[in-house]
Each structure stands twice: as C-alpha cells, then as structure tokens.
C-alpha cells in the first residue's frame, strides 16, 4: 500500500513566510511521490496549529508527516506528541529545518527557497522509510547503591530511601560520617559539626530501608540502569555488629598499643578499637595487622572481657552481590601532599601541619582534646596560615578549591578564641569568598580577631623552612619585595584533589574522569550529578571541590535524578532508537564489540553471531557505520533513510 504523506510548512509568523516563496514550496512539495496533502499554517506549534495537524492526520488518514519549520531541537517532541494523539506512531515524522538553517541565514529569497525545497524533499524521501518504533519497557530494580558515607552519600541515602526502595550505603572505613564527622566547628556560623551530622547518622543507622555496610568496597559492576549487579567486598571486623554496644571494656585489656603518628606521636590506639570517640556505628573492630592473635599468639583478653560475647576471631571477608537500579559515587576527595614541593617545608621541620591536621588538633575528640599545642606540648606564640598550597599553580593543580580561604579564616578564628595573645597571620595571594555568607564571616574575623594578612605576589611565592628555634617563612610580596617572618606553627591549606582511589573506582564503574582527576559530568552545566554512564550518578567532592551545603545539595540532586528515572514496581522505558543486528547477515567478525562504548554488544556462548542488548544500547550508531557486512541497523537512522535523505537534498 502506498504511503500517504502529509507535508506541512509552518510560516512561523513572518519568520519563514517572508524569507521564502511559500507558493513555490507548496507547489514543489505536491510533486513528490506519495504526497497526498500539502499545507501551510501560521504557527503550527500553537494550540490551534496542533489541533489542526491532529485533525488533518485523522481526516486524511496520513501515514507519514513532514513538517518544515523550526529546528527539530525545538519542537520535534511537540509534533511527535501530536502524531501520537492522532493515533500515528510518533516516529513517522520528519522535520525539515527551514528556519534556523535556512530562512534566518539566507538573504536572497530565491536561494532560501531553493534550499528549503531541497530540505523538504530530503525529509519526504526519508520519512517514507521511517519505521514505527515502539517504546519497550523492562522490569527494573529501584534499589540504590551509594558508595561513600560522607555528608554527600548520607544525604543521598536519606533522600532516596523510602518504602519499597532499599538503599545500600557502603563505606570503606569502619565508621560513617566522612570528613565532616572529624570537624569541630563549621564556617560561617561556627555551628558544631558533630551536632549537625550526628542526627543524620543516627537516622541512617536506624532507617528501615537503608543497609549500611562498613569496611566495604566495590569490586565489580555489571549491567545497566535499572539492572545493575554490583559485587562488594566487606572486610572482616572480627566483632559482631549486632552484639557490640561500644562499651570499650575490650580496649582496656588489649595489650597492644598501635602508635598513631600525629604531630610527633601524641596519639595511640589499641589493636581493638573504635576510630574516634563518638564514631558511628559505635562498634569496635580488630585491626588484624596488629592484633597478637593474627600474629599466631594465643591472646584472648578482648574475648574474655566482652560482656556481650561479641568477639568473632573466625570472621572472614565477605563478598556480596547487590542488585540495584542505580549507583551514586560519593567517594569524597583527597588532599594535595605538601611534601611534593620542598618550598612548603612539610616533613622537614616540626609544627608544619596541614589544615586537616589542624582540624584534628582543634577537635575536642582529637589527640589534644582540642587544644592547639606544639609538639613540645606548649601553645604556639604565633601561627601562620598559608593559602593555596598546591592549588592555582600550573605545577600541581591549576584550579581553586573554593573552600580553603573560608576554612582558613575559620581556623584563624578558632586559634584566636584559644590564644588571645598569639600572633595570627595569613599568607594569601587572593581571597576567594563566594556566596551569601562569606563576606560577613570575613568581616567578623577581620574586625574581632586581629589577624594580620600578608599578600603574596603569586600563590606559590613562598618558602617555608626550619629557622632557629622556629619556622622561617620567606615570601615575595605584591611589590616583588622579599619579606621574612618567623612562626611557631604553620598551617598549610592544601588543595582538594580527587581521592587516591578515584581511578580504580572509575575503572570499576566504567565512567570517565575529567582533566583534574575528578569524576566527569554527563553535562557540566545541565546534568552535573550524572556521569556519562546512564544510571551511575555522583555527589559531593567526587565531582569536584566543594563545601558541605553544596555536597548535600548534590546528594539531594542525585536522589532526585534517580527518583525521576526509577520508581519501585514500575517498568523502565527503554530508548526506542536503538541498533539491531540481523543474525542472517552478521558474520561474527566482532568489530562492533570493540567499538561499542556502552558494552551493549556481546557474543553469547555457542552463538555464531553477536547480539545487542536493547537496554544498554543508546542508539549512537557507531557500530552500524562500522559493520563491514551491513548487518546492523541504527533505529530511526537506517542506512536506507540517510541515503534517501541525501538523494533528496542533492536534487
């Protein structure tokens, strides 16, 4: 049966009507084979236009529709919906872009008319070969795996967990809460960090729909959005998490003390321990590397002391397979190692520490119980805070981490509260104080805390080394003059970098990293929490340096993206424009398998030809272009359709 093609030329007000010879175009379109109806309309995308189109399709029993008008990027979906409402498969439409790519850019009416005519002819030729495409659905799993239980991961987990949707929250450390749990106060209002996060951690641990797996890492990820199988490996804790209440009876009797190198060995812990006071879950673990039992000795003090019978020496590593519909990477950040550049003097003299070490120092749960002390146990007479350590320099990281200026001001403020007489100085080359609260905080610190600012010529025009009895800082000021100052303590605000394990995690997830080493967004502007792999999302500093509120916001954003795609009990709609293989023609050469960026093509055991997984295929057509046998057809962009369009365009 011949096709019944309707051609509609939208005038788009004067936009198209005045730029081309409409009568000529209408007449020309009527000449083509199978075209049964040619019309023009003022604004086809208006409610009247859509109604007119719908009625026409039905009244004239059209089997294919060509619309010549604005870019398909603007209204293709609008008109597909009209076709659908008219009872026609939405893919039996082709749009000729005679506005953006013709009427708006060609001055001469005759030239514009000639091109528009050819674009319309190409569309008519092509639409004749369009196949109706069905949107298939598959069963899917709406459960979610969140990797990393820092502030981004926990906000994702809490936002996405609900009845009928389970969340697995895995964390490689023995406790959850990430970096924030180790902070004392937070800028700009010096709220207590643990007060902020503990309620969230409690909510996580007591949530019916969230399963927390500590000491756990991803090993392998297979599948696709809605149907991922993730292998995770959980190290042995040697303590029953259900039975242990964290009473600490075992620490007291453990004969092994493990030194924790911190500012000259101030701290230590036992071989059975809880990482820090207030760590959640409040459950002990045995450090297998230092426990005497694992060195072959028959020590069992902890077993005997435990009032709850929670010790499990026999526990082993567990591998589990989690079935989830989506994965969120919230693996946080690493810090620039200041030993990479001798100018920072880190490791060369005592009392040169990083900002993260300073956080530990001022933390009331830390090794000094929050007191700012030198390694000799005395408070410093003066402290220098150095900005941009390893950042904004081509040698290391050319970006600004965006949070260090503010936390360094916070550190200066914390130092001032403890040390009213101390000299407190900041070495910076610029100050980055974005957002609605930063300037207020800066002014407050400036006004109340008596802090001296030294401005450097560039972020790295500074040398820090051991002086006589103190630390000597030489910097080049904005006038190019060298200046020398001595301090008891130096705090280095190191750049936030991608975590050391990021590359491995990206490999497991098969997602890309950006130039700076952080996970790359599907679209940095419009889809910042999606990776390039459908169903794998990210949140927090895994995506790039950011502060706590932004990490939380990204966690919520990732949750929102997942909730928009996966609903418990609802099937998942698949991309209709996918590639298909004709097994009769496929020679099994396997060229396509290596080209598919989505691993959608596979050679099944015992089959001579390959097959394409319809749920994983994204329809790019790279395989179709490369298949030497021509066995692969790209849905909606078949070789035949493109050849036809080409012939139409060339007249």
């Amino acid at each position, binding site marked *: 049966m011949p096709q019944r093609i309707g051609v509609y030329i939208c005038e788009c007000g004067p936009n198209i009507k005045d730029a081309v010879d409409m009568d000529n175009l209408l007449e020309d379109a009527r000449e083509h084979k199978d075209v049964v109806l040619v019309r023009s309309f003022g604004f086809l995308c208006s409610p009247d236009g859509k109604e007119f189109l719908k009625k026409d399709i039905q009244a004239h029993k059209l089997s294919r529709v060509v619309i010549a008008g604005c870019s398909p990027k603007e209204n293709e979906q609008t008109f597909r919906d009209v076709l659908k409402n008219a009872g026609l498969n939405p893919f039996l439409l082709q749009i000729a*872009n005679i506005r953006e790519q013709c009427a708006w850019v060609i001055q001469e009416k005759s030239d514009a008319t000639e091109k528009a005519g050819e674009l319309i002819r190409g569309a008519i030729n092509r639409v004749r070969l369009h196949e109706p495409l069905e949107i298939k659905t598959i069963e899917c799993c709406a459960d979610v795996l969140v990797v990393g239980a820092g502030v981004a991961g926990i906000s994702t987990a809490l936002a996405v967990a609900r009845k009928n949707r389970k969340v697995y929250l895995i964390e490689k450390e023995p406790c959850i809460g990430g970096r924030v749990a180790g902070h004392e106060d937070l800028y700009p209002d010096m709220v207590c960090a643990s007060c902020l996060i503990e309620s969230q951690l409690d909510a996580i641990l007591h949530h019916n729909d969230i399963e927390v797996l500590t000491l756990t890492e991803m090993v392998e990820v297979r599948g696709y959005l809605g149907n991922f199988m993730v292998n995770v490996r959980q190290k042995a804790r040697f303590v029953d998490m259900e039975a242990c209440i964290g009473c600490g009876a075992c620490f007291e009797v453990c004969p092994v003390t493990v030194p924790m190198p911190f500012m000259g060995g101030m701290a230590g812990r036992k071989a059975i321990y809880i990482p820090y006071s207030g760590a959640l879950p409040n459950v002990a673990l045995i450090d297998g590397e230092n426990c005497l039992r694992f060195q072959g000795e028959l020590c069992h003090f902890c077993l005997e002391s435990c009032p709850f019978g929670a010790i499990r020496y026999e526990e082993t590593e567990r591998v589990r397979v989690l079935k989830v519909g989506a994965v969120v990477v919230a693996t946080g950040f690493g810090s620039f190692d200041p030993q990479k550049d001798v100018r920072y003097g880190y490791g060369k003299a005592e009392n040169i520490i990083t900002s993260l070490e300073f956080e530990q120092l001022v933390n009331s749960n830390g090794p000094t119980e929050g007191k700012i002390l030198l390694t000799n146990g005395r408070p410093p007479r003066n402290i220098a805070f150095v900005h941009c350590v390893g950042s904004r320099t081509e040698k290391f990281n050319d970006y600004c981490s965006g949070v260090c200026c503010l936390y360094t001001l916070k550190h200066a403020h914390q130092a001032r509260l403890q040390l009213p007489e101390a000299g407190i100085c900041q070495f910076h080359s610029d100050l980055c104080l974005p957002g609605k609260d930063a300037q207020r905080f800066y002014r407050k610190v400036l006004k109340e805390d008596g802090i001296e600012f030294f401005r450097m010529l560039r972020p790295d025009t500074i040398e820090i080394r051991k002086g006589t009895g103190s630390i000597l800082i030489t910097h080049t000021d904005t006038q190019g003059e060298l200046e020398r100052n001595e301090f008891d303590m130096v705090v280095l605000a190191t750049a936030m970098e991608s975590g050391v394990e990021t590359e491995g995690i990206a490999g497991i997830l098969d997602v890309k990293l950006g130039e700076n080493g952080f996970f790359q967004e599907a679209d940095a502007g419009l889809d910042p929490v999606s990776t390039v792999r459908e169903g794998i999302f990210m949140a927090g500093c895994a995506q790039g340096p950011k502060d706590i509120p932004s990490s939380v916001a990204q966690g919520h954003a990732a949750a929102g993206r997942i909730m928009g795609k996966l609903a418990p009990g609802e099937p998942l709609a698949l991309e209709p424009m996918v590639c298909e293989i004709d097994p009769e023609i496929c020679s099994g050469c396997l060229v396509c398998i290596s080209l598919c960026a989505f691993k959608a093509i596979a050679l099944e055991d015992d089959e001579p030809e390959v097959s394409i997984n319809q749920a994983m295929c994204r*329809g*790019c057509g790279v395989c179709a272009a490369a298949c030497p046998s021509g066995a692969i057809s790209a849905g909606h962009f078949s070789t035949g359709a493109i050849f036809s369009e080409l012939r139409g365009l060339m007249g």
Partner: protein
Amino acid sequence: MHGFEPKIILFLCNWCSYEGADAAGRGGKEFPSRNLREIRVMCSGRVDPRFVLEAFRIGADGVLILGCAPGDCHYKTGNIEALKRIPLLERILQQNGIKNDRIRFDFVSAGDGEKFARVTGEMVKLLKRLGPFDHA
C-alpha cells in the same frame, strides 16, 4: 569558475554540532548557508563511509562531518571513532580521484555558532577555489 556555488553535505551530530548550526542561525552569523545541506545523525560516529561516497557520487562538491568536542561526546567516544575513520576514507577518496580537501572533519560544540560559521565559511571558500567536483 566565476559564480560557482558549491554544494556541501554536512553530517551533524544531534547533541553538539546540530545545535552549533542552529546557534549560528539564531545568532544571525554570516556564513554561506545557501551552500550547505545539513543531515542530522545521532552521533558523528554514525557516519558510514558509504554516506560520504554516495554524497560525492550524486553531486556534492564537499562533505563536512562535525562532531562534539573531544571529551564531550554524548556517546563517550563516537566522535573519536568518526575521526579515526577519516584517514581511511581519504585513501578511498584519493583512489577515486577525489582530493582530500573536499572532506573535512571538525569539532563544533553545542552553541558554538561562531565556529560553525567559520568552518563552513572556510570550506565554501576552499571549494570555490577548487571548482566543482568532476563526477565523471
């Protein structure tokens, strides 16, 4: 060769280059749109070398394949696959007496109407100099 207006077939990827072409139109850039005939594909990697050969066979004077900037491909690496095919395609074209200048691959990002206008302008200028492709 005075008055010769070449005809170029463009293969534009749906996500970046097609948007770039639209942006050039929206922005009212100066470029020789009358010489261009655009075909939308989902990915520049979809461009089968046969499409290019067919374009020349039926009368195109030049072919432009435009894809997303490296690292921006909606399908991760489709643009790079497209780029990798060009040397082979050039050899086939050469064997058929078609100068390499008549085909060009480039990256045009979504919204980069400026570059779209520049690349198409350069191509038309070049083809005007080369003259019509002799299909004989």
